[in-house]
């Protein structure tokens, strides 16, 4: 994904959702034009991925902090507010139920939390069934961290007998028939080894001495979370009532998951009924799903100041109602009372209301203002780089820019340089095995450039000014960046004199010629007797010479090469980073 937005998206993959316009129309309750929708959806925070006018479908990306957008029903809630067809928080009725889940404290050893809910009178069409599958997958990913944090089980309520018991047992102490591998009774340990889902998610239970399990009153296995359900509660076309269990390691996340799932099913026409969860350890009973709105009290001035507008109380309340929050003037002076629906997982701080208010107001309605202040400065190292570039191109050298990631064999062996793995940056997990370290010299990159361009017209004179990375365990992050300059000349008559003239031209232009000395040295990369050590104020900063024919041949090249490489940090007298 080479998106401009990749920067702040921080490498986060955005989930996508396909929307049939017809279904949206039915849910919104008004005629929608696909072109208008394309325009409108961006203002509620949905990113258009593609539009199919023939099939009348739109594919959108939604942000991972809005898992309530994982279904058309969820999107329509907000869209209705945008169109001002419904304002304020949607209401959901939860009928009190009597079903109980008892929680055995032993689950603290493996997967401490469970909540549940009952959904009655379901009557789903094909699209809705697909949505239900899709939403589970998205929730497992977005809130569940691939089932580690949250796992969902959906069951046929009428096939099991309450109360249920959430407990944990030894991996081989119980056998049951699991979905998708129905012919055999397997122990939990066997499921992890043989069942496709078991193999996929076994890592979540690695090293645990007991595994979580849900039994019904008759000790029948309802589910082996977070792996697989028992065959007993399989949902079929005839299923009328559902029991949903959500288990996990994060109490907040499992509740959010249940809330999103049950409100979406309610939007599909089903009825929600609560379940009692008894935590036997401390005698605490909780009733879920808890769809009560969550109340926040936020300062109006804070919101106006943050956005840079001056909305009246009425205007502000309307903005919140449009994003489907309830809002009312507060008893507290200067404040507004806001109630957030239980499916909104992304409200953590008063600042989150700033964005909601701005979305309700419409980003497109916001003015643009400018502020004065500050005098800018360039970084001295970039200035040095640019000065050196000017000098180098004046001497007819063409600039190249190479990657910093590289391959140790090419970077060292090809150059006849010795290297010890432990003295260099090592990447733990590269996707392409070619990239296992970062460069410590620019010269190997220039050699690769010559190879790539070896049939181009000669002479080829190229240079690079760039950073290299040295391992340095004395620093905060264990490495040190240095700024290098390297240049090569490649043609029939390349020789030491030519590259020495270039060095002189450079140091004279920089005004440091009298501080530079070149003394004989040896280096396997270069030809014995035609290589010198460059020093600046008697400190060694680089090397200059004719490249060893073996190295030339390693890169499949066919003319002599003269080269120089030096650390130019020192010219500024301080460490880059």
């Amino acid at each position, binding site marked *: 994904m080479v998106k401009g937005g990749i920067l702040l998206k921080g490498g986060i993959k955005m989930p996508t959702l396909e929307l049939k316009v017809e279904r949206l129309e039915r849910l919104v309750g008004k005629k929608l034009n696909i072109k208008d929708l394309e325009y409108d959806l961006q203002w509620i925070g949905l990113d258009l991925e593609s539009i199919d006018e023939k099939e009348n479908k739109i594919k959108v990306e939604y942000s991972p902090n809005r898992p309530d957008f994982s279904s058309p029903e969820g999107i329509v809630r907000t869209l209705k507010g945008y169109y001002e067809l419904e304002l304020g928080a949607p209401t959901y009725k939860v009928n009190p139920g009597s079903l109980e889940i008892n929680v055995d404290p032993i689950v603290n050893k493996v997967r401490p939390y469970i909540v549940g809910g009952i959904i009655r009178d379901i009557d789903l069409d094909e699209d809705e069934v697909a949505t239900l599958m899709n939403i589970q997958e998205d929730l497992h990913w977005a809130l569940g961290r691939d089932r580690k944090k949250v796992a969902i089980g959906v069951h046929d309520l009428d096939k099991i007998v309450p109360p249920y018991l959430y407990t944990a047992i030894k991996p081989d102490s119980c056998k049951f028939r699991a979905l998708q591998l129905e012919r055999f009774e397997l122990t939990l340990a066997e499921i992890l080894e043989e069942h496709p889902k078991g193999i996929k998610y076994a890592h979540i239970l690695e090293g645990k001495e007991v595994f979580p399990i849900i039994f019904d009153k008759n000790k029948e296995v309802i589910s082996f979370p977070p792996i697989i359900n028992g065959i007993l509660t399989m949902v079929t076309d005839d299923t009328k009532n559902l029991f949903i269990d959500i288990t996990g390691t994060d109490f907040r996340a499992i509740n959010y998951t249940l809330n999103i799932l049950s409100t979406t099913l309610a939007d599909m026409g089903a009825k929600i009924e609560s379940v009692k969860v008894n935590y036997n350890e401390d005698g605490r009973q909780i009733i879920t799903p808890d769809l009560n709105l969550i109340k926040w009290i936020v300062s109006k001035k804070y919101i106006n100041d943050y956005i840079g507008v001056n909305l009246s109380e009425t205007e502000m309340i309307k903005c919140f109602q449009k994003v489907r929050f309830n809002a009312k003037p507060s008893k507290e002076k200067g404040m507004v009372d806001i109630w957030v629906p239980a499916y909104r997982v992304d409200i953590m701080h008063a600042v989150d209301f700033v964005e909601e208010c701005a979305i309700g107001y419409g980003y497109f309605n916001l003015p643009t203002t400018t502020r004065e202040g500050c005098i800018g400065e360039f970084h001295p190292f970039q200035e040095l780089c640019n000065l050196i570039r000017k000098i180098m191109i004046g001497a007819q050298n*063409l600039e190249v820019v190479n990657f910093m990631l590289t391959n140790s064999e090419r970077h060292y062996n090809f150059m006849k340089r010795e290297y010890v793995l432990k003295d260099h940056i090592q990447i733990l997990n590269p996707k392409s095995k070619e990239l296992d370290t970062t460069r410590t010299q620019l010269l190997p990159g220039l050699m690769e450039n010559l190879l790539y361009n070896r049939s181009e*017209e000669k002479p080829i004179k190229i240079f690079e000014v760039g950073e290299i990375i040295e391992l340095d365990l004395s620093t905060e992050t264990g490495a040190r960046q240095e700024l290098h300059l390297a240049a090569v000349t490649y043609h029939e008559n390349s020789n030491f004199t030519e590259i020495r003239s270039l060095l002189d031209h450079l140091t004279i232009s920089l005004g440091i010629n009298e501080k530079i000395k070149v003394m004989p040295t040896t280096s396997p990369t270069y030809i014995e007797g035609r290589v010198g050590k460059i020093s600046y104020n008697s400190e060694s900063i680089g090397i200059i010479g004719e490249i060893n024919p073996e190295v030339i041949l390693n890169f499949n090249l066919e003319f002599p090469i003269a080269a120089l490489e030096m650390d130019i940090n020192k010219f500024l007298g301080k460490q880059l980073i």
Partner: protein
Amino acid sequence: MGIKLKQNVLEILKILQEKDIECDASELAKELKLDYIVLMSAVNDLDKGNLGGFKEKYLDYLYLTDEGLNYLKKGLPSRQLINYLVKNKIKEISIADLKDKSELTDKSFYRAIQNLRRNKWIATSKATGENKVFLVADDFPNTELEVFLKTFEKKPFYDKSKLSKEEVGLIEILNKRNLIRREKRTQRLIFLTPEGKKIDVRKIEILKEVSKITSEMLISGEWKTINLKPFNVSISGPRIHAGKIHPLINIINEIREIFLSMGFTEIKGPIVESAFFNFDALFQPQDHPAREMQDTFYLNNPKQSKLPERERVEAVKATHENGGDCGSIGWGYDWSYDIAKKVVLRTHTTATTCRRLAQFYRENEKPPVKVFSIDKVFRNERLDHSHLAEFMQIEGIVIDENVTLCDLRGLLTEFYRKMGFPKIITRPSFFPYTEPSLEIAVHSEKLGEWLELGGSGIFRPEVTYPWGIKDPTRVLAWGLGLERLAMLKYGREDIRDLYRNPLKWLREVSY
């Protein structure tokens, strides 16, 4: 006949008669040590006398592609497999294992297997229940194709018009596997007309004409009497291969100037970065998918970084666990020091801007502060025409009292206008460390469409409070990728071109 020619034209005519073939103009100029312009001007004289002239010819040169060069070094896929088997003395192996051991793509692997079977070097069988490969030959001589491929070591390219029949066939096979790339070149060929070929040069009278003014002529005054030969001014000169700035550096410098003109100061930060600054200090929970191995380069060496001053680390820890002192509810989990100490190649320059917030705190600075960075970031990706594992990010932040979302919109409008995009849209978006967040779409005149070109927002209080930056002081931030902009500006379609340094492009690029 009374034909008169200048001395040098006569010389060139003699040479061409001796050669009796068409000559490449730049080769000939080099051979005669003549200025290209002088040579072409002489040819022009021959043309006028109907004795010769030049024609342009378009040549197809055939080179190996990167993949081709790779095979030149490592051997064709089938050879790589055979080498592996022979080297490790393997007589039989399952196809899946062999596939794992090879570094080949699916396509080249299975084609190689097919070829090896056709050569009767291996056999495959499912007899044992598993799909297996058996080595059946003892000797694996180089194939015709391999022999041909080797010739590229000595000779970097073939001229398409000069291929033998066999070579055409072999080139065709290589081309099908995308191992050959073509490059067109223009060649100027100098020729003689039939008259030019048979004319007796001894009978040609020499026209006294001077091609250049010498120092003596200037001093002696002779320049007033000489007959100075006219030049054909319409012919282009030969190409100069001058030094040039790399296109990416050029665009980076343009953007740096924009930032400077808007009062921003340039900053740099470490590429080898702690997970603490890359993720934790930006309020990304430790189990966040963006932190996983498949997206981020973690380092094996160095393995651990040092965390900053204890009280600041505790402040960041508290925001994750319970919101700390910033009014947030936090993520509600146990924050781990060890995960924060891991070392990564920075995945965004926001790690560097976050370090600037830390500096703001340590040096007890007063707002406003406006800084920018244009620097390298890394993502664990496989390279292809639209993905790089390292690329440049452009990022700016403003730390100021009472700055607003409207100020941010104003800032973006100005920045993108200076970048050449007078029409922009800012719409709601999401980033883990900004709230409100927005995304910028610009209208490209060149493509006639809207492009996503950057993300932006105000840093969350959870990010700024640990560094003492508290309401009403806020931090505006925005950023975008450089390469996409460069591809748009320079009309490149393969993102890798920006770092491959093809001299053809670098020498002729228009900035």
